[in-house]
């Protein structure tokens, strides 16, 4: 008798439990996750861009989930590392679309990786927010493709505007033979024509060169040059800066936004003093005027990032933050993750204040940043200082 009772209780308990667990998927369905896919170059030659991007995406996905998700739905992040290879980026994009069934993709650390993913997302119709720089990503406009970082074109414009302010009209260009440098060179040539700046020298250097004095000697002996612009990423620009001082060239030296991280100042050391470059507000967070709309966002982001990783914040980390926030903000406005509605919502992003600037997109502009988003900074005593 007792045994029978026990057996019944056990049976009932088990059925109840099965029922409950059977219900679980149903319960989860109510808060269906927002599936965000990401492809970044966390390893390989572009890892100094991709690594902080990956960290930021993971950090903020966690933070948002802890705060209850977006509209009660958690964010489910899937990150793949393309190792800096465009072909891998393409196959991961395919995997994100077909196997993981993501609602939106953030990423493509480099322009090459982004352009490899573009045909796939265009065909599948998945909103895609790139973290790469070149202007080709959004010009001509592609229906499903957006980007967060400033373009090389904007950098060239900002530099030439600053030159004009100083009354300089003849520029010597030194660009890196990387994708970033080549695209930067093209844009500089085009912008120079528009702004009436004369390019008096057009030199290149290898991304891994350890000495650029030969090219710089040519620039030095070019009597016409009034300023020098370097377009490159990583250690190359630091090598150029050191060689520049070694040769005793006194012309104003400009760098692109590609070196807007403290690492550049650390590597180039004293040689970086007086170098000017266009940079996002994030880099000079503490120096922005209190009235600047970006002040709050960048100060907060810097604090969260530096507390979490105890390394200095980089603009690249900011691009990933902007990408994720624009996507999630669009999910809110679209009232769900219907891909077409989500795409439209991203395109209608208006007045989003991020680390890169104030973003207002339109059907014609899938980046949404204006030249105001860039601040001209100068290296002074080993730190960035805003040029007024």
């Amino acid at each position, binding site marked *: 008798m007792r045994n029978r009772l026990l057996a019944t209780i056990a049976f009932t308990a088990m059925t109840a439990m099965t029922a409950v667990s059977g219900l679980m998927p149903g319960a989860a369905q109510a808060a269906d996750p927002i599936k965000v896919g990401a492809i970044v170059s966390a*390893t390989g*030659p572009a*890892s*100094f861009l991709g*690594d902080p991007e990956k960290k930021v995406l993971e950090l903020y996905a966690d933070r948002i989930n802890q705060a209850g998700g977006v509209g009660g739905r958690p964010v489910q992040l899937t990150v793949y590392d393309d190792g800096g290879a465009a072909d891998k980026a393409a196959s991961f994009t395919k995997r994100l679309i077909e196997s993981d069934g993501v609602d939106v993709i953030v990423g493509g650390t480099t322009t090459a990786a982004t352009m490899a993913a573009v045909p796939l997302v265009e065909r599948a119709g998945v909103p895609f927010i790139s973290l790469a720089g070149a202007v080709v990503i959004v010009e001509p406009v592609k229906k499903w493709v957006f980007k967060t970082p400033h373009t090389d074109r904007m950098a060239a414009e900002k530099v030439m505007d600053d030159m004009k302010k100083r009354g300089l009209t003849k520029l010597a260009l030194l660009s890196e*033979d990387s994708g970033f440098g080549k695209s930067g060179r093209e844009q500089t040539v085009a912008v120079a024509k528009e702004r009436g700046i004369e390019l008096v020298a057009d*030199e*290149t*250097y*290898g991304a*891994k*060169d*350890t*000495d650029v*004095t*030969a*090219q710089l*000697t*040519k620039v030095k*002996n070019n009597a016409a040059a009034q300023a020098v612009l370097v377009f490159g990423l*990583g*250690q190359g620009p*630091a*090598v150029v800066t*050191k060689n520049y*001082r*070694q*040769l*005793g060239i006194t012309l104003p030296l400009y760098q692109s936004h590609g070196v807007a991280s403290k*690492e550049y100042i*650390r*590597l180039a*050391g*004293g*040689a970086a003093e007086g170098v000017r470059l266009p940079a996002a507000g994030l880099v000079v967070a503490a120096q922005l005027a209190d009235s600047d709309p970006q002040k709050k966002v960048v100060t907060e982001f810097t604090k969260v990032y530096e507390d979490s990783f105890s390394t200095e914040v980089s603009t690249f980390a900011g691009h990933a933050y902007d990408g994720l926030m624009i996507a999630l903000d669009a999910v809110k406005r679209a009232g769900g993750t219907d891909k077409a509605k989500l795409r439209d919502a991203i395109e209608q992003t208006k007045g989003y204040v991020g680390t890169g600037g104030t973003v207002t997109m339109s059907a014609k502009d899938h980046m949404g940043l204006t030249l105001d988003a860039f601040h001209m900074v100068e290296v002074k005593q080993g730190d960035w200082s805003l040029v007024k």
Partner: protein
Amino acid sequence: MFAELLQYLLSGLTIGAIYALAGLGFSIIYNASHVINFAQGEFIMIGGMASATLTASGVPLPLAIMIGCGGAMLVGVLVAKFAVERARNASTVTLIIITIGASIFLRGVAELVWGKDFKRLDAFSGETPIQIMGASMQPQSLWVVGTAGVLIVAIGLFFARTLTGKAILATSHNRLAAQLVGIDVKRVVLASFALSAALGAVGGAVVAPITFSYTEMGIMLGLKGFTAAVLGGLGHGPGAVAGGLIVGIAEALGAGYISSAYKDAVAFVIILAVLLFMPNGLFGKRGTERV
């Protein structure tokens, strides 16, 4: 005009000295084991990274270089012992592929240990450029050229005067005969790996202030060093040094007088020409088929 030429020559000399050091490392290992060790660039990287990170944490520079050197030698011996020696009977091509594998592995480990960012090492004696007749050079360049010179002479003496050096030479001439007269060929191979690792590591430490150090710095230096070694005649020590200087100076002159876009092409055109017309390199012995 003259100042310009002098500037190119000085630039070329600095880069060339770095290539020469790397090329010398290739030659030593090739002599002892007939292996082209593509992990040579990683020895340079270990030297550069170790001295940069150790000095940053307060270790005095000479000690940091010595630790880096010791570490690289240990790694070199391990590579020889566990990767090359085990495949002793494999073909040369297989052995070369093994060293490429070892180099990728070492880069990966280095990335885990030191991280991915660039490390800075202060120049040994300041950064005030030295002016020579209108051209200028960094004081560190003198360190590079000087260190390369001293090491090259020391290596020459080592081969000519010491028993170990002579044993390595004997092994390179005829492995079997060397074995028959009682030379422990296995140890010779280990010694040659340790030696070229040390050479690479010192090289890495002296060039670090110019090139910065990062885990991938060895790739380019290794390739150019290999070019230098082939140009001078594989296995020919002084040839590798000359090859390095020639490649460095040709690059600088090419960048200066032709176009910087073709800078790397200059080196490779030279190597192609050498391989086509002088397959044994500039100073290499005439090839005799070994059976």
